[in-house]
C-alpha cells in the first residue's frame, strides 16, 4: 500500500512538475489536496471493512466523542448514517480494485489505476458532498430559525459602514445575545483558533485592515467596539474558549488585525503585488509536493495503527475534504472542516512524535546546550525552551536584557584606560586569558588602540595593539571596513565578531556574567583596580568553557550535517554579516551611510528565508511531523525550530571561524535534494557586488526571528503541539487571485504542510527573476517594487505562523518603499501598540523583555533609512537612537550643564544667572561678547581636562572632532539661554552710545545710492524681489542662537548674491566685485540690527572657523557694515576716517589675540622654547607640541632637540615679566600658553628650557618667583 502510494505520488509529482511550468498555482494546490485525499481514501479502503462492521455502534460512539460538536454532523444523525452507508457501498469496489492493483508489479499501470480510482473516489466524495450540502442546508435552516434569522447583520462585515451598523445593532441586548449564540458555533480547536475564526466570521480583511486594537493612527479602535465584547462572549461560550482570558482573546485579535492587511489579498496593501514568476517555481513546488506526499505517506502507518478511534474522523475528514475541494466553503463550514483536519492530524502527529522524539532529542539538547553557551558568550539568550529544559526565567530574562553594548558601556572604567602606557597594559593583560583587552591611547602611535591579550601558543607577543582609526564621527579598527559611532559599539562588536582581530574580544567574566546593571556598576566602580581584584580571576574558568563550546559546536555542526545532509551554510566572511548573524540586539549599529546606500538589496530577505527553508528540510522528518502537530504552536514550532537551527548554524559557522585563527574557508555548500538551495546558489552570483550588504537586512530578519523566538521561550509550549491550520489568506490572494474564497482556503489546506517551503521557494524564484531584472536596471535607481515584493514575501513566509510577532519584520521592507509610507507608519503604530499592550498584562510583560532590548537598539538601524528619506516619524524613541554620537555627546553635556550637582553644571548655572542679572555691567557689547566667548572657551577646556564627563568624550567622539562637539555643546548650554539677554544688552549698548542712531541714518542714506556709487562695477545688482528674499534670510538668521548657524545663513545670502551676479554675466567675480555688491545689498536691506548680529557672530564664532569660508564672508559682511556705518564720512572724505581705521586695527589685533586663545587645537601646535645655557645665551626652537602634551613630554622633546646630555638636570620654566616659574611635570604648556593669551593684557612670556639651578636645593616654583633675574 505504502509503496503504491509512493509510486502514485511520484507520478503525480512528475505531472506536477511539468504542469507547474505553465499551470496556475491553484491547480497545483488542488492536486496536492487530491494527493492527500487519496492517501486518506486509501486508508479508508483499508479500514472500510472494519468500519462497516462497526458502523452502527461507531456512529453512536464517535459522534458524541467529538470534543466540540460539529453541527453539520451532530444534528442530523439519520441522514448522515444513510450517507455513510451510501459512501461505504460506493467505496467498497474501489477498495478492492485499488488493493489488487497495488499488489500488481506493473508500476505505472497500477499507478494510473490507482489514480483513476482515486479520482473516482473523489467524484464519489463530491457527490456525497452534494448530498451533504443539501442536508446542511436543512440543518442551517434549523439554525436560522434559532438565531441566524434574527441576525439581520450580514457577516462578515465588508465595509466600515457595516461595522457602524453592527455597532448600532448591538446596542440592543437581545441582538447581542443572538449574535453571541450565533458566533459561539464557530468552533475552533484552540482558543487562538477559535478567536481567529470568530474574527474571520465577523470581519472581512478589508475591514480588519482598517482597525487595530487600541485605535492608533488612522485606524479605528477595535477594543472600543461592542462587537469586540460580543466576540469575547461568544468565545467564552465555545468549548475551548471557556477558560480563555480576555487578554488571550485580545492578543489573538491584535495579531489578526495586524495581519489583516496582508491577508487581504487583492484589495489591501499588497494590491500591487502579483506573483509574477510561478513558472520559476517548479523545482521547489515539486519539492514542496514531495514533502506533502512524504507526509501523507508517513500518515499511513499511524492511521493503521489506530484504526478504531480515528476511523470515523478519517471518514469525516475525507468527506469534508472532498467537500472542500469542490464546494465553496462558507465560514462556519470551513471552520469545522479545518477542525476535522486538525483532529485528524493530531492523531497522526501524536504517533509521529513518538517516532521522532527519540531521534530529535539529542539534537535538541545539543542545540540548547550550544545556545546556552552562546548566550553566555554572546550574552544573549535566544534559547528556546522547546526542549525539555526548564529555564530559570527570573535571572535569565534579566540577563538577557543586557546587551553586550550595555555591558561594555557600563563598565568602561574597567577597560577604557586611555592614559595607560604600553608597559602598564602589558602588566595588566599578562595574567589574563587570551582575548582580554583594554582600550588605551598609545603614545607611540598617537592613537587609540585595543590592547589584546594574545594566545601565547600561536602568537609570539602576549599583548598586541590594534589601532583604532578615527574618522569623521566614526571609529573603526585599522584595516576593517566597519565603522562605529562610538568606541563602545566598536568594542561591543569586537566582543562578538573578531572582524580583523585574530579572535573576538572577551569581556571579563565578572562583566559578561553580571546579571544586573548594578552588578556592572559595582565592577565599574573598581575602575582599573578591577584587574587587581579577584573578580577578574574567575576568568580562568571561562577558558575551559570555551573549549566545551568548541566541542559542542563541532558536535552540533556534525549533527547538522547528518541531519539531512545539510552542510553548514557557507559564508564568505563579510564583516557585517558576522555582526548580523548574531541576531542579537546588541550590535545594531551599522554606519547609517552604509545602510542608506544599500537599502534595497534585493537578495537579502529571500536568502534568509531560504536559509530557513534549508533548515526546514534538514529537519524534514521532524518538522513535517510537527506540522501536523497538535497545538497552536504548530506553525511556530516549525519556524522556531528552523530558526533555532538556523541561528545555531550561523553561530556555528561564525564560531568556527572566529575561534580558530586563522579562519578556514567554510566548506562548499551542497544540499542534495533541495532545489531551493540550487536556486540560491544560482542567485548568489547574480546579486554580485551588492550581496555583501545583504546581511544587514538579515540582521533584521534573523534578529527578529531570534527575538520573537526568544520572546516565546518563556511561555515554552512544547513544540509538538497542535494548531489548527490557519487559513492562509495572504497565500490566497497571491496564488489564486481569481479563485473564489473557498477555493483559496482549499489551497491553504492543500498547502498546509508545505506552505512555508513553498512560500520560500516562491520568493526564491521571485528573487531569481528579480535579480535578473535588477541586473539590467540601473543599480542606483531606487527600487521600490522590490521592497514591496519583499514585504509580501515576508508576509507569506511568516503569516503561516500567524501568531508570531513579525511586526518588526515588516517595518523595514515597508519603509523601503516611499510610496508605502503610510503603511509603514501603521506598522510603526502597531509596534507602539505592542509596547503599550505589553505593559497591560503580566503575561506579555514576561514575554516582552527579551524582545525589548533588541528593539531598542535596532530601531536606529532599521528606521534610519526612512528618516534619511525625510519621512519623519513621530516615534521619539526612534529619534533617540537616530542621534549621531555628536548629538548624544552634546545632549549629555547640556544635561550636565543643567545639573548643579556637578562642578561643570555649577559653573555654567552660576555664570548664567550672573549674566542674566548683570548683563549691563559690561562696558560695551564687545566686552560682553568677549567674556561670553572666554567663558565658553574655559568651559571647553575644563570639560576636556576634567573627568566629569562620563563616559569620557574621547570614547564617543574622534579626537579631532572633540573641539567642535564641545563648541556645539557650549552654544547650546550657554548661548541658547543667554541669547535674548545678550541681544537686548547689545542693542542697549548701541542705543546708548549713539551708534544705533548713526547707523540708521547712514543706512537710510546708503539705501538711496546706486550700485555704482557703492563701487559696483559691471555686475548686476539684485532686484527688489531678491533683496526681499535676502532680508527674509537675514531675519531667519537673527533667530538663531548658534553663531555657526547664523554664519551658514549668511553664507546662503552670499551665495544668492553671487548667483545673481554671475547668472547675469557668466563670469567669475572676485572680491573686487563682491564686496561692493555686498555693501550695496546690506544697504538695500536696511536692517540696522544686522550690525549686532555680525558682531555677535564675529565675537562668538569658534575661532577655528574664522579662517574658512564662513570667516571670510563674515569678515566681508563686517567690512561692508563698517563702510555703511561710516558712509557719511566716507562720502565726505572718500576714505575711512582715521578713527574707523583705528577701530578696525584694534579689532584686528583683538581678534587675532582672541583667535589663539581658545583653540589650543589650532593648527599652530607650536611651542617656542628657548634653551638657556649659562655660557651661550639662548637658542630658540619652535617645537611641535600637542595641546595635551605634558611638561614632562615637552622636556623630553627639548632634551632631544637641544641635544642636552643631562635632561634630568633641566626643566621647563615659564618666564614672564615678573617671575620665573618651573613648570610641574604634569602641567600642559600649551594650555598655559592659551591661558596666558586669554588674559586681557597679554604680558610677554617665554618658555625656557634650562638647567635647574642649585641642583641640591629643592627649589620650589615660589622661590623662583622672586628670582626673575634672567640670565
Amino acid at each position, binding site marked *: 500500500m505504502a509503496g503504491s502510494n509512493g509510486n502514485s505520488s511520484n507520478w503525480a509529482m512528475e505531472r506536477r512538475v511539468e504542469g507547474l511550468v505553465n499551470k496556475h498555482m491553484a491547480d497545483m494546490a488542488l492536486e496536492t489536496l487530491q494527493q492527500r485525499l487519496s492517501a486518506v481514501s486509501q486508508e479508508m479502503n483499508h479500514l472500510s471493512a472494519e468500519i462497516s462492521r462497526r458502523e452502527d455502534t461507531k456512529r453512536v460512539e464517535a459522534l458524541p466523542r467529538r470534543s466540540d460538536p460539529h453541527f453539520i454532523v451532530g444534528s442530523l444523525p439519520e441522514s448522515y448514517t444513510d450517507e455513510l452507508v451510501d459512501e461505504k457501498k460506493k467505496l467498497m469496489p474501489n477498495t478492492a480494485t485499488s488493493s489488487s492493483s497495488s499488489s500488481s508489479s506493473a508500476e505505472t499501470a497500477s499507478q494510473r489505476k490507482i489514480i483513476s480510482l482515486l479520482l473516482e473516489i473523489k467524484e464519489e466524495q463530491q457527490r456525497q458532498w452534494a448530498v451533504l450540502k443539501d442536508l446542511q442546508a436543512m440543518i442551517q435552516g434549523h439554525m436560522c430559525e434559532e438565531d441566524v434569522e434574527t441576525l439581520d447583520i450580514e457577516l462578515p462585515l465588508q465595509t466600515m459602514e457595516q461595522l457602524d451598523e453592527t455597532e448600532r445593532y448591538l446596542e440592543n441586548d437581545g441582538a447581542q445575545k443572538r449574535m453571541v449564540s450565533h458566533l459561539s458555533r464557530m468552533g475552533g480547536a484552540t482558543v487562538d483558533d477559535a478567536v481567529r475564526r470568530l474574527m474571520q466570521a465577523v470581519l472581512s480583511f478589508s475591514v480588519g485592515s482598517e482597525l487595530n486594537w487600541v485605535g492608533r493612527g488612522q485606524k479605528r479602535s477595535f477594543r472600543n467596539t461592542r462587537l469586540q465584547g460580543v466576540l469575547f462572549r461568544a468565545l467564552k461560550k465555545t468549548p475551548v474558549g471557556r477558560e480563555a482570558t480576555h487578554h488571550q482573546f485580545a492578543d489573538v485579535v491584535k495579531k489578526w488585525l495586524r495581519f489583516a492587511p496582508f491577508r487581504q489579498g487583492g484589495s489591501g496593501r499588497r494590491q500591487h503585488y502579483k506573483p509574477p514568476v510561478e513558472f520559476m517555481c517548479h523545482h521547489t513546488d515539486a519539492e514542496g509536493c514531495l514533502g506533502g506526499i512524504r507526509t501523507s505517506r508517513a500518515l499511513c502507518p499511524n492511521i493503521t495503527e489506530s484504526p478504531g478511534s480515528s476511523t470515523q474522523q478519517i471518514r469525516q475528514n475525507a468527506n469534508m475534504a472532498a467537500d472542500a475541494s469542490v464546494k465553496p466553503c462558507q465560514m462556519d463550514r470551513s471552520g469545522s472542516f479545518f477542525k476535522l483536519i486538525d483532529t485528524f492530524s493530531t492523531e497522526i502527529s501524536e504517533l509521529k512524535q513518538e517516532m521522532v522524539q527519540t531521534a530529535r532529542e539529542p539534537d535538541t539538547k545539543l542545540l540548547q546546550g550550544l545556545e546556552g553557551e552562546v548566550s553566555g558568550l554572546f550574552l544573549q539568550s535566544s534559547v528556546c525552551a522547546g526542549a525539555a529544559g526548564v529555564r530559570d526565567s527570573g535571572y535569565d530574562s534579566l540577563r538577557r536584557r543586557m546587551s553586550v553594548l550595555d555591558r561594555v558601556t557600563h563598565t568602561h572604567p574597567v577597560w577604557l584606560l586611555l592614559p595607560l602606557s604600553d608597559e602598564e597594559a602589558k602588566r595588566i593583560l599578562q595574567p589574563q586569558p587570551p582575548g582580554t583587552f583594554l582600550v588605551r591611547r598609545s603614545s607611540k602611535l598617537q592613537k587609540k588602540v585595543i590592547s589584546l591579550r594574545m594566545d601565547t601558543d600561536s602568537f609570539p607577543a602576549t599583548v598586541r595593539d590594534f589601532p583604532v582609526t578615527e574618522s569623521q564621527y566614526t571609529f573603526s579598527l585599522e584595516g576593517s571596513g566597519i565603522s562605529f559611532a562610538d568606541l563602545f559599539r566598536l568594542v561591543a562588536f569586537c566582543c562578538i565578531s573578531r572582524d580583523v582581530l585574530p579572535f573576538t574580544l572577551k569581556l571579563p567574566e565578572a562583566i559578561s556574567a553580571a546579571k544586573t546593571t548594578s552588578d556592572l556598576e559595582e565592577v565599574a566602580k573598581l575602575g582599573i583596580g578591577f584587574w587587581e581584584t579577584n573578580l577578574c580571576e574567575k576568568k580562568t574558568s571561562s577558558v575551559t568553557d570555551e573549549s566545551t563550546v568548541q566541542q559542542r559546536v563541532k558536535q552540533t555542526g556534525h549533527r547538522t550535517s547528518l541531519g539531512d545532509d545539510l552542510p553548514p551554510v557557507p559564508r564568505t566572511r563579510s564583516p557585517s554579516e558576522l555582526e548580523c548573524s548574531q541576531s542579537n540586539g546588541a550590535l545594531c549599529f551599522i554606519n547609517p551611510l552604509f545602510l542608506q546606500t544599500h537599502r534595497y538589496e534585493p537578495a537579502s530577505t529571500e536568502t534568509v528565508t531560504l536559509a530557513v527553508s534549508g533548515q526546514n528540510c534538514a529537519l524534514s522528518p521532524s518538522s513535517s511531523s510537527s506540522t501536523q502537530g497538535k497545538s497552536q504552536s504548530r506553525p511556530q514550532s516549525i519556524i522556531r525550530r528552523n530558526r533555532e537551527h538556523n541561528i545555531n548554524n550561523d553561530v556555528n559557522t561564525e564560531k568556527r571561524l572566529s575561534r580558530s585563527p586563522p579562519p578556514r574557508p567554510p566548506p562548499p555548500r551542497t544540499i542534495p535534494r533541495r532545489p531551493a538551495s540550487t536556486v540560491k546558489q544560482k542567485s548568489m552570483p547574480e546579486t554580485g557586488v551588492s550581496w555583501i550588504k545583504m546581511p544587514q537586512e538579515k540582521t533584521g530578519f534573523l534578529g527578529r526571528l531570534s527575538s520573537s523566538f526568544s520572546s516565546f521561550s518563556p511561555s515554552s509550549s512544547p513544540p509538538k503541539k497542535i494548531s489548527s491550520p490557519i487559513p492562509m489568506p495572504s497565500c490566497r490572494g497571491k496564488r489564486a487571485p481569481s479563485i473564489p474564497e473557498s477555493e483559496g482556503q482549499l489551497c491553504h489546506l492543500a498547502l498546509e504542510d508545505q506552505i512555508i517551503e513553498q512560500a520560500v521557494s516562491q520568493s526564491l524564484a521571485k528573487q531569481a527573476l528579480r535579480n535578473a531584472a535588477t541586473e539590467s536596471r540601473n543599480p542606483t535607481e531606487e527600487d521600490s517594487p522590490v521592497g514591496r515584493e519583499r514585504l509580501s514575501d515576508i508576509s507569506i513566509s511568516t503569516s503561516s505562523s500567524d501568531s508570531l510577532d513579525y511586526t518588526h519584520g515588516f517595518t523595514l521592507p515597508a519603509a523601503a518603499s516611499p510610496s508605502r509610507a503610510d503603511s509603514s507608519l501603521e506598522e510603526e503604530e502597531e509596534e507602539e501598540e505592542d509596547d503599550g499592550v505589553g505593559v497591560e498584562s503580566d503575561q506579555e510583560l514576561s514575554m516582552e523583555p527579551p524582545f525589548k532590548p533588541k528593539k531598542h537598539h535596532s530601531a536606529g538601524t532599521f528606521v534610519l533609512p526612512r528618516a534619511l528619506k525625510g519621512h519623519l516619524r513621530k516615534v521619539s524613541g526612534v529619534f533617540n537612537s537616530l542621534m549621531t554620537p555628536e548629538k548624544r555627546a552634546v545632549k549629555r553635556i547640556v544635561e550636565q550643564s543643567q545639573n548643579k550637582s556637578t562642578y561643570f553644571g555649577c559653573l555654567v548655572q552660576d555664570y548664567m544667572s550672573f549674566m542674566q542679572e548683570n548683563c549691563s555691567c559690561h562696558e560695551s557689547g564687545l566686552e560682553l561678547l568677549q567674556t561670553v566667548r572666554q567663558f565658553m572657551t574655559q568651559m571647553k577646556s575644563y570639560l576636556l581636562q576634567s573627568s566629569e564627563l562620563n563616559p569620557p568624550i574621547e570614547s564617543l567622539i574622534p579626537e579631532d572632532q572633540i573641539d567642535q562637539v564641545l563648541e556645539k555643546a557650549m552654544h547650546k548650554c550657554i548661548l541658547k539661554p543667554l541669547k535674548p539677554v545678550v541681544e537686548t544688552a547689545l542693542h542697549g549698548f548701541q542705543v546708548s552710545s549713539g551708534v544705533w542712531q548713526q547707523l540708521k541714518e547712514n543706512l537710510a542714506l546708503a539705501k538711496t545710492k546706486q550700485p555704482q556709487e557703492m*563701487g559696483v562695477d559691471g555686475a548686476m545688482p539684485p532686484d527688489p524681489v531678491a533683496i526681499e528674499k535676502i532680508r527674509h534670510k537675514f531675519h531667519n538668521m537673527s533667530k538663531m542662537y548658534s553663531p555657526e548657524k547664523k554664519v551658514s545663513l549668511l553664507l546662503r545670502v*552670499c*551665495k544668492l*548674491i*553671487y548667483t545673481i*551676479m*554671475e547668472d547675469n554675466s557668466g563670469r*567669475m*567675480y*572676485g*572680491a*573686487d566685485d*563682491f*564686496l*561692493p555688491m555686498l555693501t550695496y545689498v546690506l544697504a538695500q536691506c536696511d536692517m540696522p540690527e544686522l550690525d549686532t548680529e555680525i558682531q555677535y557672530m564675529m565675537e562668538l564664532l569658534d575661532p577655528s572657523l*574664522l*579662517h*574658512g*569660508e564662513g570667516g*571670510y*564672508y563674515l*569678515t*566681508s559682511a*563686517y*567690512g561692508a557694515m563698517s*563702510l555703511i556705518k561710516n558712509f557719511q564720512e566716507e562720502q565726505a572724505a*572718500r*576714505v*575711512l576716517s582715521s578713527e*574707523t*581705521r583705528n577701530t*578696525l*586695527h584694534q*579689532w*584686528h589685533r583683538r*581678534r*587675532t*589675540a582672541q*583667535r*589663539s586663545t581658545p583653540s589650543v587645537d589650532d*593648527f599652530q601646535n*607650536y611651542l*617656542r622654547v*628657548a634653551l*638657556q645655557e649659562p655660557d651661550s*645665551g*639662548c*637658542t*630658540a*626652537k*619652535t*617645537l*611641535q607640541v600637542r595641546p595635551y602634551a605634558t611638561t614632562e613630554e615637552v622636556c623630553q*622633546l627639548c632634551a632631544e*632637540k637641544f641635544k642636552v646630555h643631562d635632561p634630568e638636570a633641566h626643566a621647563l620654566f615659564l618666564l614672564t*615679566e615678573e617671575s620665573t616659574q618651573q613648570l610641574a611635570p604634569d602641567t600642559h604648556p600649551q594650555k598655559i600658553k592659551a591661558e596666558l*593669551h586669554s588674559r586681557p593684557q597679554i604680558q*610677554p612670556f*617665554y618658555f625656557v628650557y634650562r638647567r635647574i639651578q642649585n641642583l641640591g636645593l629643592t627649589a620650589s616654583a615660589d622661590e623662583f618667583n622672586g628670582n626673575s633675574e*634672567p640670565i
Partner: protein
Amino acid sequence: MAIRELKVCLLGDTGVGKSSIVCRFVQDHFDHNISPTIGASFLTKTVPCGNELHKFLIWDTAGQERFHSLAPMYYRGSAAAVIVYDITKQDSFQTLKKWVKELKEHGPEDIVVAIAGNKNDLGDIREVPTKDAKEFAESIAAIFIETSARNAVNVEELFQSISRQIPPLENTDVDSNESFKITRQPLPSSRRCC
C-alpha cells in the same frame, strides 16, 4: 598625511587679476561642475607638499582704495600673502609697495610674501620691468614670479613656492636657529603665536 590649512591673502590693486590667478589655480584642477564654494572670492585648494598636504584657503580682497582699510581683517592670521600687480600698469606696482609696507608693519609676523607680476602675456605693453620687480622682491626677501592667469603660466609655480616656504610640520622643530636674548623687553617671539 597631515593636512595643514594655510590662509593665503590676495592683495593688490583692483583689476590686476587677483581673482583670475586664483581661479586659474583652483579651477585648472577641479571639475567645473563641482562648485562647493560660494563664490570666487574665497577659494580653497589642496596641494601636496613634501609629506604634507597644504590646503590653501585663499582670501581675495577688494582692491579699491575705499576698501583698503578693511584689508587688515583679511590678512590677519595669514600664512602667506600674494601681492599681485599688473606688469602693464606702473600704478599697480606702486600700490604693491604700499601693501608690502603695510604687511611689514601690521601683518602677521612670519607671513610669507609672494609678489606676482600678472598679465605676463601682455609683455609688449609692459610698464614694470621684471628686473625692478625682482630686485624689489629680493630686498624684502619675497618670492617673485611673473604669471599669466590667462595662459596659466607660472600660476601653479607661484603657489608651489609658497608651499615650500611654509615650514613643515612633520619635522617637529622648525629650526630657525635664531638666537635671542631674553630681556625684559617684549621679544618679537612673544607675538608670533598669535
